[in-house]
């Protein structure tokens, strides 16, 4: 019974999301729509980053590498041959890539697969080490990919970047992928694979003793998370329509890290809530950095103010509220309905 009820409620809330997006699509301004799409992309990124860092407990600092691989792959596959000929002025593009052009959906799929393959190749050196060594090695890969993107002129066009991508990404693409990612991740976390990941997180030796192949399960989590980060990279590339290596710095990883830490490491629900809060909050706080005229005083705006605020929040969360918003708990209809019942009975009294 409860299973049926939960399914109906889930479908119903998806329908509400759908109606809201339909309404937003025709009534909201360009800027608000852009923020909504950013939120969807960041939810996708945060949920998949949380899978490897929170659920599987492998502290990777390399999602900017996956994002870059995904963004570049998808961009290379959607650009028309004429556009490529025009963009690659220093060195012509490598042959098969220079003539290929596929639809957006196919390019996203290719981006996901390529990124997942890169993750599987990376897993071998990365998972030889643990803990903070793993953090540094994965961070190193992030830097290496940036250097590679800057230097492989005939594939990525170097520091000039790729320009003139068609803005395929819209509200439906970004939210569709977002819902799909959350669905897949939740199903994975609740499967035996998810339980194996948690076992590895809690105690790798004990997990191995119970017959879990820790390396394989970590690699699987890494590739799964990379797949969706690659797809999100493709979405992002076709949202901002210009990509260059300097876009995918450690700053990106830092933002995602703040999101999953504030949401609660290990909680998918927490990642979603925090992704909404931080993306929306980041836009709302933009006024700090822009010149304004406050009551006759000229305020020049201070660039970097938001990052100061975010770093302070990160430190404070780590010092005083380590479990973040959700801790490790998840949203369930059971819990939600119980919470509402409690509120209602409290109101009656």
């Amino acid at each position, binding site marked *: 019974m409860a299973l049926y009820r939960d399914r109906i409620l889930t479908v119903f809330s998806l329908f509400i999301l759908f109606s809201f997006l339909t309404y937003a699509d025709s009534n909201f301004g360009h800027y608000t729509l852009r923020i909504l799409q950013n939120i969807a992309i960041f939810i996708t990124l945060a949920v998949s980053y949380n899978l490897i860092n929170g659920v599987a407990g492998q502290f990777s600092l390399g999602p900017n590498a996956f994002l870059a691989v995904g963004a570049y792959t998808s961009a290379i596959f959607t650009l028309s041959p004429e556009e490529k000929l025009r963009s690659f002025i220093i060195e012509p593009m490598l042959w098969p890539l220079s003539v290929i052009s596929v639809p957006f959906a196919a390019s996203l799929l290719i981006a996901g697969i390529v990124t997942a393959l890169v993750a599987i190749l990376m897993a071998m*050196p990365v998972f030889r080490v*643990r803990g903070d*060594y793993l953090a540094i090695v994965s961070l190193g890969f992030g*830097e290496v990919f940036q250097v590679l993107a800057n230097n492989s002129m005939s594939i990525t066009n170097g520091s000039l970047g790729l320009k003139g991508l068609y803005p395929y990404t819209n509200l439906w693409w970004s939210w569709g992928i977002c819902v799909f990612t959350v669905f897949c991740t939740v199903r994975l976390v609740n499967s035996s694979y998810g339980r194996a990941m948690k076992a590895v997180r809690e105690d790798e030796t004990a997990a191995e003793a119970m017959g879990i192949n820790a390396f394989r399960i970590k690699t699987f989590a890494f590739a799964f998370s990379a797949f969706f980060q690659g797809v999100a990279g493709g979405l992002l590339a076709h949202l901002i329509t210009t990509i260059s290596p300097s876009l995918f710095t450690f700053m990106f990883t830092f933002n995602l890290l703040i999101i999953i830490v504030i949401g609660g490491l290990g909680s998918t629900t927490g990642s979603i809530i925090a992704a909404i809060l931080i993306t929306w909050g980041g836009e709302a706080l933009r006024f700090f950095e822009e010149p304004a005229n406050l009551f006759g005083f000229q305020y020049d705006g201070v*660039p970097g103010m938001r*990052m100061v605020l975010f770093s302070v929040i990160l*430190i404070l969360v780590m*010092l005083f509220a380590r479990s973040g918003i959700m801790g490790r708990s998840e949203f369930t209809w059971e819990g939600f309905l119980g919470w509402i019942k409690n509120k209602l009975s409290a109101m009656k009294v």
Partner: protein
Amino acid sequence: MDLSFALQQLVYGLTVGCLYGLLAIGYSMVYGVLRLINFAHGDLLMVSAYIGFFGIVIFNLPWPVSFAGAIALTALLGILIDRGAYKPIRKSPRINALITAIGVSFLLENLALVTIGGRPKSFPTPQFVSGSIVIGDVSIPTLSVWVFVVTLVLLAICMAVVKRTRIGMAMRALSRDMETVMLMGVDKDRVISFTFALGSALAAAGGIMWSMKYPAVEPFMGVVPGLKAFVAAVLGGIGSISGAAMGGMILGLAEVFIVAVQPEWSGYRDAVAFFLMIVILLTRPTGIMGERLPD
């Protein structure tokens, strides 16, 4: 590649290597005692460069005073960072401390950006480090001589402190077994503060020499040297001071020689460090001089 060219590159490589080494020692000592990668360590290089710059340009202090001030204030900042950000979470899992350290690093960088601005400031080069000494076909910049000498002196002092003094003995003991050392009546927090102060002072000295070599002081100048210095510390075997210095030298030489031998690879210079680290972690995870296995 003829001999004089090779010697010339050796000079350049060793100069950069000394600077990496100075930074790496701080990483290595803090990691040895606390098992914490102090992400903010590289940013101390930036802080010290700014203090030195302001001391000379704004307050018109003489060189030695300004540099001594920069080193002292940076050491103090190192202690404050530990007390404020790391001490409250010493008992929680190590990953939490790492996340906090990343937060501190971003805070320092962006505070500098907000208060001072992002435009690079050109660091004034004192008279006594300009020019160069020419021996045969090899020209040795005076700055390089200073860097060698200062690094060797600081390294010697640091080794002497760690090997010969009581507090150094406490540091070494703490890195082996924290609980037992506390049972012996050692004031743990004092030793940790001292470790941070010593490491930060070395980073500060490195920072000043770094900005003489690359005279553009800006908020994010410490990020890449910081990461590379950490790689150097891993290379040499984290926890070992002489290993860190040696790791720095190897990294500096590797970077310079790869570009010297294959000029078209110059774009990949920043990737050399990470490539080396991946190789070393795959083949000899304890580093060249290390004893412990990372857990």
